[in-house]
């Protein structure tokens, strides 16, 4: 091929990821679900997985996954995405299967399903969006809600006496034998977004390599239910949330330990 004629600004350096359906999302302004969807779509594109992927949608603000990510998607009952994904992957081990779950979904009602999927080392990738609340149902307490945080069901602030403690899922799951990869990331700065992408890529590679369950926990915002402007919500992630939920990689299986 001959070199293309150089026209100013003719090279698209950022376009919509192929696997991100070209529609307006229903997410609230500044909600990080949108950012995370984008990252997932980009990573699907990167490994050319679109035509062999089955996504599993959770119940929560991300329930419309099938409207946004251009892959086959099955809807799971609230919290059961890892179980549904298990059923898909056991039937089609050659396909790429991921779940996309909120913190109410994964860390409350779905605790058992994620723990046992991880413990079995199901060869799945889990995108876990921790926004410290139940977004879709109007901002109730989640297991990840911070101490003192006011939600519609902790109107006086979460108190560990009675309501318990914010639960750190990435660490908990890292403690299980079957977990191949567990990391916590955020998307509140451009640098964090880049790092988050790397983590998702790692997670996808784990599955491609047949290493077991990989999970990436995203610290995310819910400006609507936090009653904050999106920029303030980002600040909360960078501040108190990251303090309690440290970013980092908690487990990363090497080829060698998997035998």
């Amino acid at each position, binding site marked *: 091929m001959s070199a293309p004629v150089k026209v100013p600004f003719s090279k698209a350096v950022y376009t919509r990821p192929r696997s991100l359906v070209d529609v307006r999302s*229903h997410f*609230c302004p500044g909600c990080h679900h949108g950012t995370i969807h984008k990252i997932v779509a980009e990573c699907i594109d990167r490994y050319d997985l679109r035509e062999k992927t089955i996504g599993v949608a959770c119940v929560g603000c991300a329930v419309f996954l099938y409207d946004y990510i251009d892959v086959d998607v099955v809807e799971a009952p609230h919290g059961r995405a890892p179980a549904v994904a298990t059923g898909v992957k056991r039937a089609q081990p050659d396909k790429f299967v991921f779940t996309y779950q909120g913190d109410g979904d994964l860390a409350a009602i779905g605790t058992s399903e994620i723990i046992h999927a991880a413990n079995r080392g199901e060869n799945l990738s889990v995108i876990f969006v921790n926004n410290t609340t139940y977004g879709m149902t109007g901002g109730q307490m989640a297991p990840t809600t911070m101490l003192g945080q006011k939600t519609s069901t902790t109107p006086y602030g979460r108190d560990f006496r009675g309501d318990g403690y914010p639960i750190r899922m990435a660490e908990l799951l890292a403690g299980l034998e079957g977990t191949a990869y567990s990391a916590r990331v955020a998307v509140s700065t451009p640098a964090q977004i880049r790092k988050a992408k790397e983590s998702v890529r790692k997670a996808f590679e784990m599955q491609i390599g047949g290493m077991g369950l990989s999970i990436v926990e995203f610290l995310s915002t819910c400006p609507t239910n936090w009653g904050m402007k999106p920029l303030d919500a980002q600040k909360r992630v960078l501040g108190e949330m990251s303090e309690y939920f440290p970013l980092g990689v908690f487990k990363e299986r090497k080829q060698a330990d998997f035998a």
Partner: protein
Amino acid sequence: MTGDIIMAGFGGQGILMIGNLLALTAMEEGKHVTYFPAYGVEMRGGTANCTVVVSDEEIGSPVVGRPKGLLIMNGPSMEKFLPMLAPGGDLVINSSLVEERQVTRNDIRLLPVPADDIARNKIGSRQMASMVALGAYVARSGIVKLSTVFDCLPKVISKKYEKFIPLNINALKEGAALAGFHA
């Protein structure tokens, strides 16, 4: 008086608040009344609506398929609800955001109210737009008395915002004036 109305607009425009206020007012006047808000995911994604039914008899459905009144605060709501308005019904639109040419029916009674403009320019607070529209609707429909609405304001406005009650009254009055009503 008997009547029913659907109110709709963006979230944040105060739709549920004015619906609630209207229902309270009707109750205060001894009417049967129901108020039915949008709920759940309907409240995500930036739109909100509610239905108020006022009657002298026991009310059946709090949801109506052919409302006699429509109060529309933004463009998307117009598309959704205009077809439902009963022929001859009252249509109050926020003409600051909704273009009159969007009103594709002529079997209804249109009252365009530049609610946002009035709120910003005359009342001094954009928050008051929905009150302006409510004032206009109340005056036009006569469903309740404007003075009872004034009386009920303290019940929907929390103590913290008490000081804004006069502002609300002004807004209601400005709206009512547009419907030819002068308190």
